[in-house]
């Protein structure tokens, strides 16, 4: 059941002409001022503290900058970036992260939110899912290193259950390490998706569900034809945020493998960090940042353009 737009509403209700003129869509000086004031805090904060420094970063990407002196090099940083063999691997890893993060936490979050919504013990089940999200990054890093190290918990289990088998290097072999880190990230991120889907489920009027059930929709049919469409606004949020976060993944990889061994499990965010913070090549790091931002904006634009519905 789609929500009616304003025009549909107006067409179903007869409103006297005099009142109709005072419609919400009137634009005059006072309204524009009001709109401006409402927008001001958010736009000012984001513009001054986030966008302005980023514009500075774009500017920096055209220089050879070591923090002390800078010299103009034009597109040199971008050309070196693309020619770097590690760059291709970095892009590949980033893509792997996007696919993994979209497939796992979002899907699992949806299924688990819907599945536990009407259970009496649902909040207990959800707690174990949400707990990882509330834990700090250092605890997460320590425990996953515990689990995945050569003498860690996972190999402990394997040695007990299958003594002759030599386990692979969970964190030391590519692409296995990327897969394991995606799993660790799923462990942490599913809780957030669950919460957001819970918010979305809360917004569905119970009458809608009841009406559909009266019509004979049950189980999967109910989910597919009724619940999911109702969840669309929140799904857009979850998927949109997942796209952005997966493209920007940094913390988990930095804490577990530092992009290693060598630079094999690096994503674009790590390449940027390495250039900027470890090698002090600010210009090159800025170029990676600009490239990454363009990719993320493009991906978000493609997804959100069709989903955005303001009126």
């Amino acid at each position, binding site marked *: 059941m789609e929500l009616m737009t304003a025009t549909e509403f107006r067409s179903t209700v007869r409103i006297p002409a005099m009142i109709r003129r005072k419609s919400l869509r009137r634009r005059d000086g006072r309204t524009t001022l009001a709109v401006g004031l409402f927008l001001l805090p958010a736009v000012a904060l984001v513009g001054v503290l986030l966008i302005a420094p980023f514009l500075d970063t774009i500017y920096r990407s055209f220089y050879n900058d070591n*923090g*002390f*002196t800078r010299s103009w090099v034009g597109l040199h940083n971008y050309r070196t970036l693309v020619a770097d063999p590690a760059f291709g691997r970095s892009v590949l890893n980033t893509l792997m992260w996007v696919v993994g993060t979209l497939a796992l936490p979002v899907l699992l979050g949806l299924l688990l939110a819907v599945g536990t919504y009407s259970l009496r013990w649902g909040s207990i089940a959800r707690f174990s899912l949400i707990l990882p999200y509330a834990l700090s990054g250092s605890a997460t890093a320590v425990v996953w*290193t515990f689990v995945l*190290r*050569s*003498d860690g918990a996972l190999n402990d289990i394997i040695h007990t259950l299958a003594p002759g088998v030599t386990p692979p*290097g969970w*964190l*030391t*072999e590519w692409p296995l390490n990327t897969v394991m880190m995606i799993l660790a990230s799923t462990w942490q991120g599913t809780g957030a998706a669950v919460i957001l889907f819970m918010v979305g489920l809360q917004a569905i009027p119970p009458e809608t569900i009841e009406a559909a059930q009266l019509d004979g929709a049950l189980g999967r049919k109910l989910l597919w034809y009724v619940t999911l469409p109702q969840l669309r606004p929140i799904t857009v949020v979850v998927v949109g945020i997942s796209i952005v976060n997966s493209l920007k993944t940094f913390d988990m990889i930095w804490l*577990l*493998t*530092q992009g*290693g*061994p*060598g*630079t*094999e499990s690096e994503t674009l965010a790590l390449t940027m*960090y*390495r250039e*900027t*913070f*470890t*090698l*002090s*090549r600010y210009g090159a790091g800025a170029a990676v940042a600009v490239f990454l931002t363009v990719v993320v904006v493009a991906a978000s634009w493609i997804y959100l353009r069709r989903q955005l519905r303001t009126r």
Partner: protein
Amino acid sequence: MAVTATIPRRTVLAGAAIAGLTGCARGTETRAAPPGVVTLNNDNATWAPGYAAASIPLHRQTGYRLSPRAVPNVSAYQQIVRMSAQTDSTTDLIKWWNGYRLQDIARAGILADLTEAWDEAQRAGRVDPTLRASFSYNGKPYAMPLYKSYYAVFYSKKAFAKHGVTPPRTWAEFIKAATTFSKAGVVPIAAAGASDWESIIWFAQVLIGTDPGFYQRLTAGKARYTDPTAIQAMSLWAHMYSAKLFSAPDYDATGTPAHFKDGSVAMTLGGTWNTNAYTTAGLTDSDYGIFLLPQMRLSAPFAVVVESGALAVPINAHKRKAALSVAGAWLTDDVQRAWTGFLKDTSANPAVVPNVSAIRDLHVQVADRQPREMTRYWEASPPALVEGNVNELSAFMVNPHPENVRPTLNRMQERADTEWKTWNS
């Protein structure tokens, strides 16, 4: 739809929020320090008690105490210093590294010249004059040695006693000991480095054990990673892995104290600053000892890797004069005794040795055999080159097959070609 009590309540809340905001305090430690105190920036929060201990004799001598600040992450620390040293948000003193890392920031003109302090220290015999070169840029020194650590082998006395092994004096004895441990199911040599800087420890060691002169030329850019000596040294390292003499490369070094105590790990090559961690974890003199690793080629002169942190004064420091006098007083016996008493590590001042039997032992060994002192790889070449090669070596440690030696060295040489050109331009 009259709006009544809710609006005033929200206004009150808003007013409280604004009041809270304006009452927000400024950081207590970024403005110029209070009188009698100089601020110090470093990347190690656990050394605060050491600085406090050293502040007592420092205050006596110069009238200033140290107020340390820590940035816990090494890369973040370096960036913060680079950024802040150009502004007046810098601390009065900074901890840095020597060698090319020091040159990297000294050449930007952000550090104060410490020639006077060095001359004074040399005159009073408080420092080994051969150290000066690694603290200088363009002939002028820009930092004092914060500490001086040797890279030697820590061993578990329990493991050694249990398997009848004594500290080896030749390379052959060392390999024999390691093989004994390997056969007995004890990890012979614990070596980390799969994802961090520790991969350079054994790389540097096999090089200086084969030809220390070559190591010096290599790190100065005058020899190539693809030269036969380098290939030979690294193949030796690969063969040690084939003989199962090393732990897995993602070994967690914080577990070493417990492993030493129960004898499940026999040896590890590391900096002597590790004694602090071991003592804090409860190890005593009867649990561990230290010996210098013998050279691998009998004809090679005996050498040891030395790590020496740097204490520098940024030019933009609020209290530059005070900081300069503190830097000058750093190497005095009193201060070093207090400092190394905490650090439990050898001092740059040859007259001061902390009261830890393993360290005293090492000090005697060093005085006895007079090894040539090599700068640690981390500081021995331009930073960008080292950082890149650390990644290569980490990847090698994960895959330490003899066939991997030449490709790794080739890549390291390619990087060296590019980075030396950038450094010298």
